[in-house]
């Protein structure tokens, strides 16, 4: 039941979210890659928002600390020592003094023997970021006059000015930041989950239908039909399905590779074990009394299969369907990571999001929001489906219940 509830929750989220947030999932909203999750407040609008004066203790310290970390202080000390200043004259805790010494002595053109280029660039960057760090002067926002070309002061911002985020005109909450294309990851993720589920369903249903039919026929009719179908099944087992999948996907080419096509392809290559399993069940049912009775009564084969055999394996088929669906979702994700999934611009899928995150090296750069939520979603979907399956298993087989 746990599995069922997780699954239902997922479905609800997937279908309700787009009704609330109507943004197109594939819209590129960011210029730049992998914006971290957070609340994005329009800087332009906050200038025009009413300002509140708050005098908070520690504000100045926080301001400085955000620009000058402890590592930075140590680095500054290192540079000053190299420059010749005596070590005991440097106190890294005394920001004012440290900055003063730095401003007096730092020379970006100085070449220190043995210092790597990267380190030298670091000091240049540090120096640039320290300009005006201690200043508590009001910042003036100026607009260029269209006619005269002069800068005219429009607003004055002091260190104690705060704006209320609720009053700013444009605030965007990006709980999962953006991906490499500049798309809102959360919206994209939900849309992708929906598409992946769709693909999984289609693939699962196709695979189950094929497997069920073939299994029923070969299991019940037996004989030559059975041998042929089993032979056919064996062939499919023996040719690695993923290679087959890759070959077919590659062959149909990108233009025709929409989401549904991919689902159909997956369905057509993964019916094998359903067929085998169904056949096994049918074979064991074949000689049951009620079946023999029906045979004696002269019912047609189709009637017998539908009325006497199918209901007994129904539970099994349902379980198989669920497994097929989750396998279908995984197969699609796999194909997409290979680059053989549906087209990128049409629809997002979970596999495609993983693919692009890997390509743009999100995992190397620590941009966890680009790939971790996707992984967790995939795992949750398949996990919940399998839990459901186990639950059903217990329903149909009392022996398994504790």
């Amino acid at each position, binding site marked *: 039941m*746990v599995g069922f509830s997780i699954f239902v929750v997922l479905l609800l989220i997937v279908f309700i979210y787009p009704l609330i947030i109507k943004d197109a999932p594939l819209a590129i909203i960011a210029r730049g890659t992998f914006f971290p999750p957070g609340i994005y407040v329009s800087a332009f609008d906050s200038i025009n928002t009413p300002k509140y004066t708050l005098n908070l203790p520690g504000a100045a310290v926080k301001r400085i600390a955000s620009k000058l970390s402890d590592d930075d202080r140590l680095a500054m000390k290192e540079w000053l020592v190299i420059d010749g200043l005596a070590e005991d004259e440097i106190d890294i805790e005394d920001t004012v003094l440290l900055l003063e010494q730095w401003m007096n002595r730092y020379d970006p053109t100085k070449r220190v023997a043995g210092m790597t280029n990267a380190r030298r660039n670091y000091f240049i960057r540090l120096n640039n970021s320290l300009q005006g760090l201690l200043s508590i002067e009001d910042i003036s926002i100026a607009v260029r006059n269209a006619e005269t070309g002069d800068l005219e002061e429009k607003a004055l911002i002091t260190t104690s000015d705060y704006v209320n985020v609720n009053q700013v005109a444009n605030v965007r909450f990006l709980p999962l930041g953006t991906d490499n294309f500049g798309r809102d990851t959360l919206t994209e993720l939900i849309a992708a989950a929906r598409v992946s589920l769709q693909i999984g369903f289609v693939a699962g249903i196709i695979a189950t239908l094929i497997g069920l039919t073939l299994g029923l026929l070969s299991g019940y009719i037996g004989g030559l039909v059975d041998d042929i179908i089993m*032979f056919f099944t064996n062939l499919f087992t*023996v*040719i*690695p399905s993923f*290679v087959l999948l890759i070959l077919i996907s590659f062959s149909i080419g990108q233009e025709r590779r929409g989401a549904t096509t991919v689902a159909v392809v997956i369905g057509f290559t993964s019916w094998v074990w359903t067929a085998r399993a169904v056949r096994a069940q049918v074979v064991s049912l074949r000689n049951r009394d009620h079946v023999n009775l029906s045979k004696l009564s002269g019912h047609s084969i189709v009637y017998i299969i539908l009325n006497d055999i199918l209901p007994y394996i129904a539970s099994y088929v349902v379980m198989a369907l669920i497994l097929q669906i*989750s396998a279908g979702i995984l197969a699609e994700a796999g194909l997409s990571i290979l680059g053989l999934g549906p087209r990128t611009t049409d629809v997002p899928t979970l596999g495609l999001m993983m693919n692009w995150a890997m390509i743009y090296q999100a*995992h190397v750069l620590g941009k966890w929001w680009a790939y971790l939520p996707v*992984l967790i979603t995939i795992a949750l979907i398949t996990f919940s489906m399998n839990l459901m399956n*186990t639950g059903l298993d217990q329903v149909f087989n009392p022996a398994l219940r504790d």
Partner: protein
Amino acid sequence: MKGYRKYFLNKLGWFLITLVCAFILNFILPRLMPGDPVAAIVSRMAQGLSDARGVQAIYQQYTELFGTNRPMHEQFFIYMRNVLQGDFGFSFSQYPRTVADALKSSILWTIALQFPAIIVGWLIGNTLGALAAYLKGGFDKVIMPVSIFVSNFPAFGMAIILMVIFGVTLEWFPTSGGYGFDLIPEFSWNFIRSVIIHYQLPFWSIVLIAIGGQAIGMRSMSIYELNADYVKYARFMGIKDRKIIGYVFRNAMLPQITGLALSIGTMVGGALVAEIVFSYPGLGYTILNGVMGQDYPLISATTLIITIMVLSANFIIEILYGVIDPRIKAAQAD
């Protein structure tokens, strides 16, 4: 024994027929892909040639060499003859490397990675599953969901997470390569130790998922068996628990072996994700490149190897089954 012989011959017959058909399919399937691989190679080689005749000449040369200008059945017979002599031909995408050469180096790595991983995963998984079924209670309640969750983690997900946590963040294990980036392969303790260290992450990414799957299966199986009539009867008779368990698990184990056979059969192509994520040398990546580059000989050769392995594994298992479990033979005779 007579029934057994019939069983054996039946199996053997199907094995051979399937082998032949699979062989033919392996040949045909890659060639059904659209696109002309020779054209791709030729246009690469003919860069800058402004003379149309020059390009044509090169194109002719290569189609002759690869034999793609002949009708399909002729190509097939040439292919079959070559394969029986052990010559898999030239790889299109890695020309002038031969397919055998391209496969030789990578197949060892793949087998070395997959085989122990499958066995270990199988062993640990089955043990856990059996224990869960036997002990029930708290142990079972924890093992079950955890196994399901882990087994459902997509393989690439597991690989990436392991790499990010253990390779990049904690730096306990290396993040790429089959052996140290500064090592030259040779038989030294240093080298072997490096291989083992580089082996860990890809190995565990496969094993963890395998464990999950096996545990679930074994648990179901064991529960079935534990509730079987003969177990209850034996208990009543006063036979020691330990002896009963021995029988139970032997019965439950049988079907698991089928799964093992299948895994071993398909292992050659199975580690694709681990190979890419960890830059591990192996066959999976070669296959992928082969497909992308429409490298018929390479694809045919690898699928052939996989085919033969799966068929053989299946065949052997079915024969073993027939020997071990008399019920199977009886069922066949039905």
